[in-house]
């Protein structure tokens, strides 16, 4: 795509967004049924390193469905990106711009943007898909019928990391007396797991050391890592985003921190590890889906989108971990729409329909095979009460060139996370006076 085309495309989508509030529900250009899927993305700014591959993966999967199948269930998908720059204020502007145009759901791609949308979702009847991010407690579908965060919450992820560490040490009881450091983006996202982490520290007897990194200092972390040198934590856990991740990995190599004891939640990309050079070998992170293009769904994306020049992805970048994360996210969007169509008999569905469709998600092995995702990810079943699935995650390790899966699936510690999540949901309701009791019907059995 040439520069001028990019300029015109950006200008056109910008104008569409500005006019969005005044336009009616979105229709396909040919006047046929369509479903409007706005994607809140960030291809610019300090977090673009994480935002670009995800945006590409999300867009390309939906475009593939348009090209290959004519959309979902005979209705085209109208894809529109709104640039948030990972800025909550801009994200809310994006939401205001699209909410009057019958979006079937919104994908905030920011915990900071998700949090203020939680109370609005029920009012505007627009489901929020915060895939493996956002408020962990919002997995409770009875309390948060409009919020979906499959297939894991941040608290689930933390419990998997703790379990992985415990497995290496020889059991949960071996964590007693250990020291675990937590380096994180000092924002809604990074702070989200702290209550759970503190609970784990209390229950399992390890010491927790916190190393917050402000967004303004993502590329300036020497103080935090000097603190790591002083405190000598046995393991380091990271919840980072954007420029925080590559800088942290680099800083860890600079102080010779053992990389196989440095474990991140599922966000670092290949570029994040690669930029730290050979020293990054051994760096670990969680994941729950395949990496690479050796899956039918990825082949279809290459054939119908990338090879036709319809993608913005740089050559060879399709199949990377965050690109595939975007693909997974859009697969959930499409499944939500497809289920909604089945439930209502309509081709063009509404946010209310898709909320029901998301609750009906049931990714059996057979369904995953139909989707071209056999071996790509684990089955997932959502329901009216469970908007998450709390699936297993695995640990993958950077071998200097790519991430390699190093162990089997690890289930979250539901016995530990469940009660804390339930208490958090209850606390949320108490703090938000007048929080509505669930009145939405339940289709799933």
């Amino acid at each position, binding site marked *: 795509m040439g520069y001028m085309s*990019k300029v015109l495309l950006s200008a056109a989508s910008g104008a569409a967004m500005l006019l969005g509030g005044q336009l009616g529900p979105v229709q396909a250009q040919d006047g046929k049924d369509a479903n409007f899927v706005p994607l809140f993305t960030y291809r610019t700014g300090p*977090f*673009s390193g994480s935002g670009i591959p995800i945006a590409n993966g999300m867009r390309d999967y939906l475009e593939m469905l348009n090209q290959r199948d004519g959309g979902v269930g005979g209705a085209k998908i109208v894809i529109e990106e709104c640039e948030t720059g990972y800025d909550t204020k801009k994200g809310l502007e994006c939401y205001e711009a699209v909410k009057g145009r019958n979006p079937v759901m919104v994908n905030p791609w920011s915990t900071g943007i998700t949090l203020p949308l939680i109370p609005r979702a029920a009012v505007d009847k627009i489901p929020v898909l915060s895939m493996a991010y956002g408020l962990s407690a919002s997995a409770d579908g009875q309390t948060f019928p409009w919020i979906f965060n499959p297939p894991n919450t941040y608290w689930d992820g933390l419990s998997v990391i703790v379990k992985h560490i415990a497995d290496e040490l020889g059991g949960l009881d071996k964590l007693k007396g250990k020291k675990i450091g937590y380096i994180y983006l000092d924002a809604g996202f990074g702070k989200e797991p702290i209550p759970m982490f503190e609970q784990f520290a209390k229950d399992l007897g390890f010491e927790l050391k916190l190393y917050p990194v402000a967004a303004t200092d993502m*590329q300036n972390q*020497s103080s935090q890592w000097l603190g790591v040198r002083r405190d000598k934590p046995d393991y380091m856990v990271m919840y980072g985003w954007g420029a925080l991740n*590559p800088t942290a990995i680099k800083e860890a190599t600079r102080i010779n921190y053992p990389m196989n004891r440095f474990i991140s939640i599922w966000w670092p990309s290949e570029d994040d590890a690669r*930029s730290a050079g050979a020293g990054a070998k051994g760096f670990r992170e969680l994941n729950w889906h395949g990496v690479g293009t050796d899956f039918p769904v990825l082949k279809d994306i290459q054939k119908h989108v990338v090879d036709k020049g319809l993608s913005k992805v*740089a050559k060879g970048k399709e199949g990377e971990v965050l690109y595939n994360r975007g693909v997974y996210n859009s697969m959930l969007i499409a499944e939500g729409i497809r289920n909604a169509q089945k439930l209502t008999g309509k081709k063009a569905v509404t946010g209310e329909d898709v909320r029901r469709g998301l609750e009906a998600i049931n990714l059996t092995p057979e369904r995953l095979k139909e989707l071209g995702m056999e071996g790509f990810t684990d089955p997932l079943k959502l329901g009216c009460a469970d908007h998450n699935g709390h699936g297993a995650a695995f640990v993958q390790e950077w071998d200097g060139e790519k991430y390699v899966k190093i162990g089997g699936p690890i289930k979250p510690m539901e016995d530990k996370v469940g009660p804390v999540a339930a208490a958090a949901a209850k606390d949320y309701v108490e703090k938000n006076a007048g929080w509505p009791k669930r009145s939405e019907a339940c289709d799933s059995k």
Partner: protein
Amino acid sequence: MLYNIFIDPFVQMAGAPDLLVQALWDGLVSGVLYALIALGFVLIFKASGVFNFAQGIMVVFAALTLVGLYEKGVPAWVALALTLVVMFLLAVAVERVVLRPLVNQPDIILFMATFGLTYFLIGFGELVFGGNPKAMITEQLGLPRGVIDVEMLGGRVSLQKIDIAAAIIASIMVAALAVFFQKTRIGRALRAVADSHKAALSVGISLNQIWVIVWFTAGVVALAAGIMWGARSEVSFALEIVALKALPVLVLGGFTSVPGAIVGGLIIGVGEKLGEFYWGPLVGGGIETWLAYFIALAFLLFRPQGLFGEKIIERI
């Protein structure tokens, strides 16, 4: 509590002097880089009275141009030369399109114009080179990588070779700028413009030429800062935020003083590292972001013009 604030940090310093040296070194390196960025602000402020808000994005733009050209197949040293050409063209464009039409306008108008320039450079940079973070071409430019571990004071102090190079390059640049300002004809003209635009014009100094030179010099300084910061992390638009750390440096050192930028940078760099490392844990960490401003404001109470800034005396 009082013990934790006033005694314990110093006990820690005495107990692990190697970590103290490491914190000081890290602070000095950060300080040198802050100083480099602040230098760009000072140069432009001295010559044109404009507080150039775009200096931060110039750091990103210069580094992005260098790496972007390299990614497009241009050899590293040629990319470096071409980046200098781009920064020169930018200086000419700024003088022609921004400064010249706004001459004699209030300072706030020029300041706002640099806001506009900031957003133009962000958009233009992303349009041409994309928003993807890029790895700095450290090795291709012959800059050293790796670490020198020095066993001392019963522990280890790690000196990154790139940090040593940054300190040396920054020192050379500062020295070169000092000579340029003090000993050359253009340097004297720059100082004359800084003292009084009207007086400089009356003795035949071309204001436009001086502005181009000074914006280009600021561009070169921005490129050096961009290379060094980029080598420590990556070249991304997040660098712009780091560049704003130069603001407390300016408050501290004064907007018109080159030595002030250097000393201010070092004080802020060392101060924030020591603060975060020894006092940060008392409040859960993360104080580095605002500590720099706190230090600068504390100085401001006693010297409103900054450490080396010129005292402003106005007749009423």
